[in-house]
């Protein structure tokens, strides 16, 4: 499991020796960092508050998912009701309305695999090329990428809709997948990471030995990029998994809804005349929706932590 991590750290001394021009600019001056950090009461309290702030909604969600519709109305949010209905709720969530939740779950997985997977792949290719090749217009590309990071996807959703509408792509899964393929932030991250993690000498050595560019990329560079790839993959996965606004305006047919839209449909049932009020299923569905994300973060923790730190620490 930890092989790519060690490879990455091993590569760093080699790079310092070479002192790449781009890398030296990113170096931060060594600050006075003592081995034993001082304990600050204020910081501990603030961190504790922050922890509460982020964890309380989760606790609320888990506790509420154990309640029936009646239990939700009868009891306070942060403690259990008399009835424990978690299993019933989970079963009902999966079977309600002919199991439409499963369909939405599979749609979400499809969008994540193709959208986030594709976005990560493109970010790797682009980031690697920008980091390791020199070509005219590189600075312009840099400006565009940085600019694109600043534009929220939501702002582009409506123009994208108009364009897709003309192309006849709305109300198809492509309308969600294609815009998800672009991740300026992922590209930028890959770029920075590739600059740091792949010693140019290594590439030169590979080329000297007669490896083609494709082979150098796949067999030499890709393993070195693994922590960065996992980080970008996690970012794009979370973005695609949680995407609400884009599918909202692109999709009309509920057969293609992702979970986010599906849950909001269930929630709005309470607002309609004669609608079936199923807040308990909305809550349980929300819990089930975030479980895969939490699992992904915990399982890949080792990778993305080292990925985040890359470029920030120099030996």
């Amino acid at each position, binding site marked *: 499991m930890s092989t790519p991590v060690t490879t990455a750290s091993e590569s760093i001394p080699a790079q310092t020796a070479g002192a790449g021009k781009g890398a030296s600019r990113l170096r931060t001056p060594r600050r006075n960092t003592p081995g034993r950090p001082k304990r600050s009461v204020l910081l501990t309290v603030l961190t504790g508050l922050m922890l509460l702030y982020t964890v309380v909604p989760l606790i609320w969600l888990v506790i509420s998912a154990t309640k029936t519709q009646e239990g939700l109305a009868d009891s306070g949010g942060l403690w259990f009701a008399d009835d424990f209905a978690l299993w019933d709720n989970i079963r009902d969530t999966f079977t309600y309305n002919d199991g439409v939740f499963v369909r939405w779950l599979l749609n979400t997985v499809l969008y994540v695999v193709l959208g986030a997977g594709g976005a990560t792949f493109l970010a790797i290719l682009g980031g690697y090329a920008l980091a390791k090749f020199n070509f005219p217009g590189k600075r312009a590309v840099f400006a565009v990428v940085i*600019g694109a990071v*600043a534009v929220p996807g939501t702002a582009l959703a409506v123009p994208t809709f108009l364009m897709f509408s003309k192309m006849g792509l709305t109300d198809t899964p492509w309308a969600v997948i294609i815009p998800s393929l672009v991740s300026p932030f992922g590209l930028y991250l890959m770029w920075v990471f590739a600059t740091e993690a792949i010693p140019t000498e290594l590439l030169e050595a590979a080329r000297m030995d007669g490896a083609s560019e494709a082979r150098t990329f796949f067999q030499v560079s890709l393993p070195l990029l693994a922590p960065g790839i996992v980080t970008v993959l996690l970012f794009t996965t979370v973005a695609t998994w949680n995407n609400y606004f884009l599918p909202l305006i692109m999709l*009309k047919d509920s057969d293609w809804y992702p979970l986010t839209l599906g849950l909001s449909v269930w929630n709005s049932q309470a607002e309609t*005349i*004669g609608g079936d009020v199923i807040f308990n299923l909305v809550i349980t569905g929300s819990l089930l929706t975030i479980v895969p994300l939490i699992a992904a973060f915990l399982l890949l923790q080792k990778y993305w932590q080292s990925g985040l730190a890359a470029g920030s620490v120099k030996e």
Partner: protein
Amino acid sequence: MRRKTSRLLRGIALLSALALGATACGGSDDEGSDQKPVSASDLQAALKKGGTVTVWAWEPTLKSVAADFEKKYPKVKINLVSERSGDKHYTALSNAIEAKKGVPDVAQVEYFALGQYALTKGLTDLAPFGAEKLKDKYTPGPWNAVTQGSDAVWGLPMDSGPMAMFYNKKVFDKNKIAVPTTWDEYVEAARKLHKADPKSFIAADAGDAGFTTSMLWQAGSRPYKVDGTKVKIDFSDAGAKKFTDTWQPLIDEKLLAPITGWTDDWYKGLGDGTIATLVTGAWMPANFVTGVANASGDWRVAPMPAWTKGDKATAENGGSSLTVPELAKNKELAYAFAKYANAEDGVQTRIKQGAFPATTAELQSQEFQNTKFEYFGGQQANKIFAESAANVADDWSYLPFQQYANSIFNDTVGKAYVSSTKLADGLKAWQDASVKYGNEQGFTVEK
């Protein structure tokens, strides 16, 4: 670097401006075509030939109606799209009509929004299909709404919402308060209740356009007068004053729970005694049963409070129709389905599932009136609803741009609920904003 960044920022700003401009472009005017008469035998032939009917409607009972319809006419397939309701539904419908693409064959449209679509020729006049012969089937309120006071029929009434007062009997009994029959008694009850139990409120009202217009309707106010594209908006008549004089003290004395309708808080409040009464349409029981299941047996139904003792006039709240958009591909089949759902076998199916009918025969049938509601402690609540349906005050009309007007309700009248603005001033502001919008849209609007 800084120079470059600022140029880039300007570029982005320009792009965003373009994007905004693109979304703001409007649709083109479209002349409606004249519909030739369609006879009953034409409809039968179309049903035999078959096809697909796309229905945009959130009414939950239509699911089984569609299944029955397909069983009866095996060649016809009903594609029921039911995920969107309210504003999202209308936005999608308007967009489809403007884009002339993806328009459904049948669309659910609430009575308040019908005028908007009828006037912009978005809907098919169903009179040539024989819809005007169905007039006697329906109660006057809904029929008035679908005809908009003309010879045309813009939709078939699906349900209706004659108003009644739902009240939490347990809360009233506990605090020994008499159930109000007039609005004056209602205000008194509100004071007593809140004094006896500071956690209890007579009602939840954080400002709701549908409720306010219904209250004005019952009070005898007729703020909207519509004659083609000539519109008059006036919230200063005697009826409106009656309403504001009664409602203002409730707001001033903080006797209304500031809970927005249809939220989880609201359902919770209905269940735990925070909200003691709910004056609304007769379609509410279905929502009580699923949304407030924990208070089963606590609630009862009483007639809507009157403005003067003994006055029986009520109003409608909510209710919707099935319409056939002008650009529908399969109008014969679309009409056949709407008729089946709202005037034939579908009506019974829908009532059995808790819908409130708009048809006279069903409203007056013994079976319907004698139905005991277990939720309301065995009360025969339909008797009260049917009585209310028969006493709905007439001559009410909504604006041909009511949907927009309702969307700005919270910015105008809503202020009265959260600041020192008076309700009457809020209504005045709503009037001014509505007049302005109407004139911009090509109506001739007077105050």
